[in-house]
């Protein structure tokens, strides 16, 4: 269904009234970003703006309205043996494409295939004053005009409301196999380095409580070859594990205390501060449960060369993403002013001051 005109009218009227809006798709990620529950935000429901508009397997691209459920896109692509390369979590099959791009949350395949922004090739948006703007296009190479489409990924709706989105795709791997074994941190890191040096077709690697999980993707022959390099103790395991990890269905995630999300250099040391850690992305993404405050966790993350955010269950009202230097935040504010002059699109969600 195309409800873009209705959405446009709502934005224009909100801009006129200086009424801030909260963009809501299927509301699967309301916990994510800064807490805006105290702000007087008018909900703007966009899930009805949905439907796949164009999918040409020979073009390796898909164009869909932002309210389209991810699982609908994923299964349509799979029929032609193609996929969204960044393996987004689907949040009980309810997450929409728009929320996926706006949050830029991605799955275990990220280090080997790339982020949302790497596959975003265009989007049609409504700016904060209700102007319809085409950013990028539907071809893979396009350097005409400033790149304002990739910054939509991860902006949490603060730079514009995405109406439809075009993504580049990848072929589905012919075959996948998952493995697991227990090993210490040093051996695990050494193994991952070795596999990478040999161009082994790793497509996921996680580590929790001394247990390494590994997934290989590729042709049957290349996976057979690669499996020969794995230690004998490595046992084949079920692929469900990756789904449960990506959807936070593992018991590790079953918590009511704050869950922190750290992005650090892949081989950064573990155990530099107290807390339980589950590492995804081969070690570059660390989920942490700890009694430490967000500020303390962010300081530890910075020491490791990375950043940290409060993902879930953090009750404080400040910023949840690692702070930006003042002058860089100013530049962000100027960008926000360009895209949303009245400051009505998801204000305060990414940073309190944006």
């Amino acid at each position: 269904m195309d409800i873009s005109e209705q959405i446009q009218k709502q934005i224009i009227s909100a801009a006129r009234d200086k009424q801030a809006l909260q963009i809501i798709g299927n509301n699967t990620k309301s916990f994510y970003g800064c807490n805006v529950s105290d702000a007087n935000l008018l909900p703007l429901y966009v899930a009805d703006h949905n439907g796949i508009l164009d999918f040409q397997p020979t073009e390796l691209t898909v164009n869909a309205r932002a309210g389209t459920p991810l699982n609908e896109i994923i299964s349509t692509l799979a029929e032609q043996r193609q996929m969204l390369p960044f393996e987004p979590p689907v949040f009980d099959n309810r997450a929409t494409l728009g929320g996926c791009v706006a949050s830029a949350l991605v799955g275990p395949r990220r280090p080997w295939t790339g982020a949302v922004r790497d596959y975003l090739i265009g989007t049609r948006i409504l700016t904060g004053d209700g102007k319809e703007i085409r950013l990028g296009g539907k071809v893979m190479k396009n350097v005409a005009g400033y790149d304002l489409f990739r910054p939509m990924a991860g902006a949490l709706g603060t730079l514009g409301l995405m109406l439809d989105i075009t993504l580049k795709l990848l072929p589905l791997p012919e075959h996948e196999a998952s493995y697991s074994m227990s090993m210490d941190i040093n051996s695990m890191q050494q193994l991952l380095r070795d596999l990478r040096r040999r161009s082994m077709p790793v497509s996921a690697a996680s580590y929790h409580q001394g247990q390494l999980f590994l997934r290989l993707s590729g042709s049957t022959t290349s996976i057979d070859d690669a499996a020969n390099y794995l230690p004998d103790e490595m046992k084949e395991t079920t692929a469900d594990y990756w789904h449960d990890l990506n959807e936070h269905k593992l018991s590790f995630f079953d918590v009511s205390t704050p869950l922190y999300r750290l992005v650090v250099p892949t081989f950064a040391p573990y155990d530099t501060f107290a807390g339980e850690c589950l590492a995804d992305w081969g070690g570059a993404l660390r989920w942490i449960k700890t009694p430490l405050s967000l500020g303390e966790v962010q300081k530890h993350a910075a020491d490791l060369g990375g950043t940290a955010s409060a993902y879930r269950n953090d009750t404080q009202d400040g910023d949840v993403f690692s702070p930006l230097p003042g002058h860089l935040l100013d530049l962000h504010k100027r960008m926000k002013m360009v895209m949303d002059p009245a400051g009505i699109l998801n204000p305060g969600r990414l940073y309190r001051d944006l």
Partner: protein
Amino acid sequence: MSNNAFIEQLTNILPAGRVLSRHEDLTPYECDALTVLRERPLAVAIPETEDEILKILEICRQHSIAVVTRGAGTGLSGGARPVAGALLISMMRFNRILEIDEDNLTALVEPGVRNLSISEAVADKGLYYAPDPSSQIACSIGGNVAENAGGVHCLKYGLTVHNIVGMKIITMDGQVHTLGNNTMESPGYDLTALMNGSEGMLAIITEIRVLLRVKPPVARVILAAFDDIEQAGDAVSEIIKAGILPAGLEMMDGDAIRAAEDFAHAGYPLDAQAILLCELDGLEAEVSTHTKTLEKLLHVQGATEVRVSKNDQERQRFWAGRKAAFPAVGRISPDYYVMDGTIPRAALGTVLKQIGIWSEEYGLSVANVFHAGDGNLHPLILYDGNVEGEVEKAEELGLRILKLSVELGGTITGEHGVGVEKLDAMCDQFNSDELALFHAVKEAFDPQSLLNPGKAVPSLHRCAELGAMHVHNGELPFPELDRF
């Protein structure tokens, strides 16, 4: 204050030899690789530290003198062409590789570092930097970022933007910002992406963190010849549909093949109307399987000949012709004009046919070289600048090709950038709201419009004037064509 006072202030900051202002010293800086468009800068400054740049910008602000940043000057759209009365800053002394981080597969480099020298510096570690524009032996990584340069391996490894994880920039107000970091994600807006392809209009880049990749153990090129160019185009779509992602997928037409063969002796079949070059890389087992699949597929698609490179030497030879296509065409024609439109792959046949018709209509030969896997076309329009009216004819034909690319859902530039060359074509691709937004972004970064002013985004006034020339009674151009 006079220009002399400005130049004198510059010489107080930079030592002798790093401020150029004499007529003959400025001549080499008049243009980039788009040599038809020239302009003499007021002066050239050659800084080598961030501090020197900060001081230069301070003086420029004082005098309201514009700044054009230049790397190796290999750009094809005039992005680094001087602006009248502006200072040109050459970044070529920013030429150090500052750090190679094997664990995170990144390198921190200065913008004047040559593209190819990054791969050379990490080759002993089995690593490389993937984007490989044809000018990679000479072009600088700073220029690559400014133009978001491509190359022949974009289909699998992306454009420059996909291979840059962070950078340090200086905005015109003298503020130094660090964008991105050395991990897979950084908080805030993706300004790193915005900087890619911004053509030196938003900030000056002083450091770049590039992504390195592990060199694949095996790479093999399949060369397939066709006696019909549309068949070759269809074969490209079939390869993609087969679920195989080649590292590179290139196409050349008959004229380009013969010119390249004559120049580079790559062993191309001279009687072919089109060849495809398809590179597969990865593990031996996978590459072998895929090679066999594609050999079969290409025969089914009507290839008259299919060859597979037997060793790396032969693979390089297959590429040599393609990579030398531009200079090769330069030998068969006094002048040529390169286009850079990108179209949905399915429209390849339609576009080729139309280019053929226009080529006859204008009496100008067109040799076609494509990054077929990306739908990125490089028609080379051959003309003779000494024949009166031919430059104009070539430009008009070029603009029609770009308009057609936009009509079919593509873009006027896939990897060469807009610069000064494609300002008019921008009016075809973007409406006034979109262009106004681009201008607002520029203003957010550079309120006085001192950084490379007048490039990349046309003024609304300019487009309005062009629009007046091209009214078609509200009719869509090319109504006979399918829209994709």
